[in-house]
C-alpha cells in the first residue's frame, strides 16, 4: 500500500494540469467472468488480482452476517452451497421471472417481482443489480489498489442487444458500487476499439461476437476521426452453450441413453464442452462422463461435430447477412472482421466467417480480454487523459422504441440503429369524445404487436381538456441519451393547460429501493452514508469549479461584466458551501452554478461549432 507515497509522473506527451490525471478504467461485466482494464504507460491492459489472474469469475456467495465472497472463492463453493452462490446473474439483469426460459433449471430460490426477479439468500432477497454491484465493487477495489488512487470513473460494457431495462439495471449496479459511469458502451464496439482501428485505418469493419449465451454482430465505420456503429444485430438466445447442448444430445442419441435430472444433465454438458474444446485442435475426440446407469463414452469427429452444429452456425450467418442488408452494404466492402468471444475459437466459425466476407478474420487480441481493453481506451479518452487526435465513438440503439396504440399495435417512434443521442416526437390524439386522460405504454422491440415487445414503462397523461374524439393533439417525445437510456414525456398541445409527464422507464426498482440498497451497503462497509454524501458533494463541487474556471479562462470574452460577476458569485457560493459540512447546501450551490452557466455553455458551444465548420470548409477547398 505504498503506492500512494510514490510521486506520479505523467506521460511525456501529456500535460495533466489543470485537469489532473484521472483514474479511469474499462469494465467488462460478463456472464461468466468480469475484467477491469486501464491505460498504463500508454498501453491498455487488464489488471490482475494479487494472484496474477485477470479474470474474476462473475460469482457472489452470501455467507451470512453481511459477509460475502466474490470471484474464485465463491465459484469454488458453488457445488456445496448452490442456493447462496449466485453465478450468471447477468442473464437476469432487468428481467422478470417469466423472461427466463429455463428458470426451473437454475438452482436458486427465485423471487418473482413485478419489474425484475430476485434471489432469496441467507442474507435476504437480493436483486441481480445488487449481485452485480458486488462484482463491480470487487473490480473497483482491484483497480484502486493497483492504480493507487480513487477511481474517477469507468466505462462499462453491455451486450449490443441489451434493452433499456438491462442498461438501466447495469448503470444502477455501478451506482450501488460507488462507480461514476462515464459511459455504457456496446461490447462489440469496445472490441473494435481494442483492435487499434484508428485514424489511419478508415473503412468498414464487422465484429462477430459469439459468447456463451449470446450472439452479436455489429458493423462499424471509421471515417474522419469518427468511429460509428452503422448497424447492429444478433440473437440474444444463441451462443456457445447451444453448441454444447447439440453435441450432448447427439452423443446421448448415439449411445441410446438418457440423462435424468439436472445433476446428470450438468455432467453431460461439461463433458460435451470439454469435447468441443478438444475438437478445436484435434480431428476427433471421445466424449466421456458418468451417468447413473453407468459410464458414457462416444467417439466424435470434428466433421460430425461441425455437421450437427451447422444449423447453429447458419443462424449466426443469417444474422450477419441481415445486418449487411439493413446497412445496405455489400459484404466485399468490409475490410476487417474482428472475432470476439471464446466460442469463436471453433475452427468452423473462423472458416465460415472468413468465407462469408472473403477475408480471414482478425484474431490476434485475446478474445476474453478484448472487450475490457477497448472499454479502457474509451475511459481514458472520456476522462480527458488522452491527447489530441481523439476518436469520437458514435453508437446506436439496438432495438426500436415505440408506444402502444389502439388494438395492441406498436407505433415505432425511434427506429433501431439510430445514432445516439437522439430524440423524436410524434403526435397522437384521443379515441373518445370528452376523453381527459390517456394511458401511454412505452415498448421496445421490432415486432408489430405490443405483446411481442418488451414493456418498458406505463404512465398516464391527465388534465387533457374534454374535446371531440380526435381533436386533442398529444405530443409524445422520446429522448435517448449517449448511454442508450430513454426518457419519455407527453404534452397536450391544443390547450393552454400544459399537461405534461416525464418518465424514465424502470424495471421496477424505485429510487427509494436504490436508496435503501445504498444505505445497506454503507452500513455493511462500516461507512457512513452522510459522510460519503458529503465527500462526493465536495468532489463534485471541486470538479465544477475547475471546469468553470477553465471555461472562463478560455472564453471570458463571451460574457459582459454583469454576467461575469453573476458567475463569479455562483462560484464563490460553491466554494463557500464546500468548506462547510452541509452536503445538501453544496449540491444546491453546484446546481445553481450549472443553471447559471448554461447560457455561457451554449455560447461556447456556438463558438466551437462555428470554428469547427470554418476549419472544415477551408479543408474542403
Amino acid at each position, binding site marked *: 500500500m505504498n503506492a500512494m507515497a510514490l510521486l506520479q509522473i505523467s506521460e511525456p506527451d501529456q500535460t495533466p494540469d489543470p485537469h489532473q490525471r484521472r483514474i479511469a478504467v474499462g469494465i467488462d461485466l460478463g456472464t461468466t467472468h468480469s475484467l477491469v482494464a486501464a491505460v498504463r504507460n500508454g498501453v491498455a491492459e487488464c489488471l490482475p488480482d494479487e494472484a496474477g489472474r485477470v479474470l474474476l469469475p462473475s460469482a457472489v456467495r452470501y455467507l451470512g452476517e453481511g459477509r460475502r465472497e466474490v470471484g474464485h472463492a465463491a465459484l469454488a463453493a458453488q457445488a456445496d452451497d448452490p442456493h447462496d452462490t449466485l453465478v450468471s446473474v447477468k442473464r437476469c439483469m432487468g428481467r422478470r421471472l417469466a423472461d427466463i426460459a429455463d428458470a426451473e433449471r437454475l438452482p436458486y430460490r427465485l423471487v418473482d417481482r413485478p419489474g425484475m426477479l430476485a434471489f432469496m439468500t441467507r442474507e435476504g432477497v437480493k436483486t441481480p443489480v445488487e449481485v452485480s454491484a458486488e462484482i463491480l465493487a470487487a473490480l473497483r477495489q482491484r483497480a484502486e489498489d493497483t492504480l493507487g488512487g480513487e477511481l474517477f470513473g469507468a466505462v462499462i460494457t453491455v451486450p449490443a442487444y441489451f434493452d433499456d431495462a438491462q442498461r438501466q439495471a447495469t448503470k444502477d449496479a455501478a451506482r450501488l458500487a460507488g462507480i461514476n459511469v462515464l459511459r455504457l458502451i456496446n461490447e462489440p464496439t469496445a472490441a473494435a476499439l481494442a483492435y487499434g482501428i484508428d485514424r489511419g485505418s478508415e473503412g468498414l469493419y464487422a465484429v462477430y461476437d459469439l459468447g456463451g449465451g449470446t450472439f452479436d454482430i455489429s458493423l462499424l465505420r471509421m471515417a*474522419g*476521426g469518427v468511429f460509428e456503429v452503422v448497424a447492429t444485430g444478433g440473437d440474444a438466445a444463441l451462443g456457445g452453450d447451444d453448441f454444447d447442448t447439440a453435441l450432448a444430445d447427439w452423443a446421448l442419441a448415439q449411445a441410446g441413453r438418457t440423462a435424468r435430472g439436472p445433476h446428470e444433465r450438468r455432467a453431460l454438458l461439461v463433458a460435451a464442452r470439454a469435447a468441443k474444446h478438444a475438437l478445436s485442435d484435434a480431428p476427433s475426440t471421445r466424449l466421456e462422463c458418468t451417468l447413473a446407469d453407468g459410464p458414457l463414452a462416444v467417439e466424435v469427429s470434428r466433421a460430425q461435430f461441425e455437421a450437427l452444429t451447422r444449423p447453429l452456425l447458419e443462424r449466426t450467418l443469417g444474422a450477419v447477412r441481415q445486418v449487411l442488408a439493413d446497412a445496405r452494404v455489400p459484404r466485399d466492402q468490409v475490410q476487417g472482421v474482428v472475432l470476439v468471444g471464446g466460442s469463436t475459437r471453433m475452427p468452423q466459425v473462423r472458416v465460415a466467417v472468413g468465407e462469408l466476407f472473403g477475408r480471414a478474420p482478425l484474431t490476434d487480441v485475446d478474445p476474453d480480454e478484448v472487450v475490457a481493453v477497448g472499454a479502457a481506451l474509451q475511459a481514458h479518452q472520456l476522462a480527458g487523459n488522452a491527447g489530441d487526435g481523439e476518436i469520437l*465513438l458514435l453508437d446506436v440503439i439496438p432495438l426500436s422504441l415505440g408506444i402502444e396504440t389502439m388494438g395492441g399495435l406498436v407505433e415505432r417512434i425511434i427506429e433501431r440503429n439510430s445514432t445516439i443521442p*437522439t430524440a*423524436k416526437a410524434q403526435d397522437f390524439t384521443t379515441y373518445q369524445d370528452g376523453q381527459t386522460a390517456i394511458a401511454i405504454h412505452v415498448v421496445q422491440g421490432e415486432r408489430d404487436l405490443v405483446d411481442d415487445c418488451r414493456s418498458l414503462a406505463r404512465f398516464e397523461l391527465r388534465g387533457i381538456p374534454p374535446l371531440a374524439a380526435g381533436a386533442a393533439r398529444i405530443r409524445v417525445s422520446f429522448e435517448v441519451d449517449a448511454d442508450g437510456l430513454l426518457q419519455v414525456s407527453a404534452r397536450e398541445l391544443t390547450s393552454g393547460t400544459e399537461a405534461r409527464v416525464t418518465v424514465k422507464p424502470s424495471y421496477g426498482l424505485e429510487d427509494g429501493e436504490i436508496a435503501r440498497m445504498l444505505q445497506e451497503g454503507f452500513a455493511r462497509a462500516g461507512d457512513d452514508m452522510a459522510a460519503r454524501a458529503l465527500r462526493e458533494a465536495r468532489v463534485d463541487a471541486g470538479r465544477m469549479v475547475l471546469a468553470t474556471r477553465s471555461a472562463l479562462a478560455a472564453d471570458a470574452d463571451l460574457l459582459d461584466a454583469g454576467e461575469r460577476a453573476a458567475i463569479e458569485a455562483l462560484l464563490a457560493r460553491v466554494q463557500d458551501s464546500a468548506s462547510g459540512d452541509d452536503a445538501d447546501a453544496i449540491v444546491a450551490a453546484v446546481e445553481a452554478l450549472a443553471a447559471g452557466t448554461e447560457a455561457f455553455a451554449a455560447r461556447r458551444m456556438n463558438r466551437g461549432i462555428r470554428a469547427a*465548420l470554418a476549419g472544415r470548409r477551408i479543408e474542403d477547398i
Partner: protein
Amino acid sequence: MNLADDDYTLFALPRRHALDLDMLDARRRTLLTQAHPDRHVAQGTAAQRVAMQWSVRINAAWRRLRDPLQRAAYLCELGGVPVRLEDNTAMPAAFLQQQMQWREALAEAGDAAAVEALAAEVAAAERAALQRLQRQLDDEQDLPAAAATLRALMFVTRFRDEVGRRRDALGQ
C-alpha cells in the same frame, strides 16, 4: 450558428435538393466531433446538457437531409408550403389510375419474373418522379408543384416496399 437555425445553415450547405451526400456526412462528423457529450464529460452538467441538445439536433437534421423525400418535404416547409402528408391525399386522376393498375398487376403476378418486371417499372417511375421533384425545387422553385409530386412519390415508395416484400416472399 445556433440551435434554432435551419438544417442547411447548421450544416453550412446550399439550400437545394441536389446534395453532396459525402459532404453532408463529413459535415456531420465535424459537428459531432465538436458537440458530442463525450467531448464535454469533464465540463460539468451545463455543458453536458448543451452538448446533448446539439447532438440531438445534429442527428435529427442529418437524418432529414439524408433522405431525399424528407429533404424535399423540409424544403417545401422552409419555403412556406406545408406538404401535409397526413391530411392532404388529393391526387391527379391519372396517378390514381396508374396506382390501381399497379395494384392489379401485383395481385395477378404469379411468378418471380412478373413481380420482377413490375418492380423495374415502379423503380423507373420512382426515379423519374424524384428527378421531377428535384427540378421543381431547385430549378423552377415551384413549391406547390413539388409538394404534389412529393405526395405522389410517397405512394410510389410505399408500393415499391410492398412489391419488395412480395419478391422476398417468392424468393424463399
